[in-house]
């Protein structure tokens, strides 16, 4: 059954086989995508012709590599910008949320906490359409009442940022709360007794303690924002983010450029993920 009990050979080897199959299932699509980024073919499919880097570097009429593909490069840049602002906003507000629910007391705390968990159980598509509707309602209201046209209320960059922020903050708050729970309150009391005020305590002591959790949560927030599709789909304006842009290309037939982008994404996120794990392990 478990490692400390005698196990039959059939049990052990069939379990091993199951795990091998599982990991094949997990990695097959990613490996194939990566490998086909280097195939010298107009389509992302076999047979294997020969190794080429042209889907990264070429700038030919029939073959434009990713480094020269302006539309895809633009969308990567848009996604970076969105993810940057989402991370900034979500880590700030999420950390405020963690402090609020761990350290403060106020009426209706439980109901507000429940409300904060809500974005986790509301499907992303619903968040997207509800924010789209609400911003349009607000936009129309501003237009009628004051005759001002507020660009923020139309689908576009900032609405995408707000839409992603609305649920990513909850995740940050939960991660930071988990760390804050382990915080030794006597440290705060000691600093208070030595004459520090509440802000100094939070700034010098509590935030120092929380730093690994905040950085980890920030990395997760960045990745979640970078790859978000469901919420973004409804809020996106003329500047498509990378997942939206890839979706449009894949839907209408694909070229190995998409494999090249995927290869960069897979290696990039894996490195980021491993670095994050390495640092969080070192801290723990």
């Amino acid at each position, binding site marked *: 059954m*478990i*490692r400390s*009990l005698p196990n039959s050979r059939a049990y*052990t080897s069939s379990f091993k086989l199951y795990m091998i199959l*599982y990991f094949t299932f*997990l990695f*097959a*699509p990613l490996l*194939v*995508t990566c490998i*086909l980024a280097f195939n010298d073919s107009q389509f*992302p*499919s076999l047979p294997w012709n020969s190794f080429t880097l042209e889907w990264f570097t070429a700038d030919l009429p029939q073959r434009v590599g990713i480094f020269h593909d302006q539309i895809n490069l633009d969308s990567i840049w848009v996604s970076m910008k969105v993810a940057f602002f989402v991370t900034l906003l979500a880590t*700030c*507000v999420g950390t*405020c*949320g963690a402090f609020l629910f761990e350290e*403060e007391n*106020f009426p209706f705390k439980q109901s*507000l906490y*429940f*409300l*904060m*968990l809500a974005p986790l*159980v*509301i499907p992303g*598509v*619903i968040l997207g*359409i*509800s924010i789209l*509707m*609400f911003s*349009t*309602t607000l936009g129309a209201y501003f237009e009628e009442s004051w005759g001002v046209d507020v660009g923020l209320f139309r689908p576009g960059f900032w609405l995408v940022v707000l839409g992603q*922020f*609305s649920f990513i903050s909850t995740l940050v708050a939960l991660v930071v709360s*988990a760390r804050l729970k382990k915080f030794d309150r006597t440290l705060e009391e000691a600093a208070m007794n030595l004459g520090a*005020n*509440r802000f100094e305590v*939070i700034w010098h002591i509590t935030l120092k303690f929380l730093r690994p959790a905040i950085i980890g949560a920030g990395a997760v927030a960045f990745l979640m924002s970078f*790859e978000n*599709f*469901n919420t973004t*789909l*409804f809020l996106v304006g003329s500047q498509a983010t990378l*997942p939206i842009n*890839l*979706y449009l290309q*894949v*839907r209408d037939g*694909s070229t190995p450029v998409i*494999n090249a982008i995927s290869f960069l*994404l*897979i290696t990039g*996120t*894996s490195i*980021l*993920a*491993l670095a994050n*794990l390495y640092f969080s392990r070192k801290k723990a």
Partner: protein
Amino acid sequence: MKHQHRWTLLIFLTPVLLWLFLLIVLPQIDLFIMSFRTENDAGKMVWSITNYYNFFNEPIYWLTFVRTAVYSILVTFLTFIIALPVAFYITKVVKPKFQGFLTVLLLIPFWVSEMVRVYGWMILLRESGVINHFLIKFGILNHPVEMLYRDSTMMLGLIYTSMLFMVVPLISALESLDDNLIEAAYDLGANMWTILFKIIIPHATPGIVSGSIVVFMLTLGNYLTPNLMGGKNSLWFTEQIYNQFIASFNWNQGSAFGFLLLFLSSFVIWVGLKLSKQTLKKVIQ
């Protein structure tokens, strides 16, 4: 002292209130209100239940709705069946020195964008895809078959996409299970199935419930995977919402659909929590 405390409360409370009310509460209320508004013959917006009436009157709408719900439950169940042995193997069977490595290996694919993962499956499964290429090469098939755009491939994609959210809570639930319990049961003559149903599953219930809630919610609200892997036959309810919003530009009908989807997801989660005697707060932690 007291005075200072009020200030910090205000500083923490304000951004959180702004966030939750402006981006969650008010938009949901707006969604609810808009779903009861419709254009009358004179082109003016009036209160009505037409949008909901349309939903129940058009079989395509409510059939898609039911289909999405049933498939999401099925996907959640299958994900659980596949993930449980994996979590068990990593926490209880494999040599401890491999534990960390396998866990990391397990997580890596899910850091990659869902779009890329779905694309990978498309390259594997489509008519000119890699699997067909090998099947023909080894003489198993004579001509390629289209493996995409079927319900089964759509399910496969949905299971793949949501696997992580089941495996991780299961691993953390099983980690806290004392090996002695299993050993004791084994010494007393319990067989594998008894141990599974009397010890492992009861102990892992919080993990199972939280994994299932997240998987169910993500599957129900998924647009990308059904759309790309299921194709035109996918008939996923989020696509109906998308069509109403983007293609037909009937936002009121779309909000009614959105609200129904929200209701469905909350209802199933509520039933799940009640059946397993858990609370949302406990499950999320």
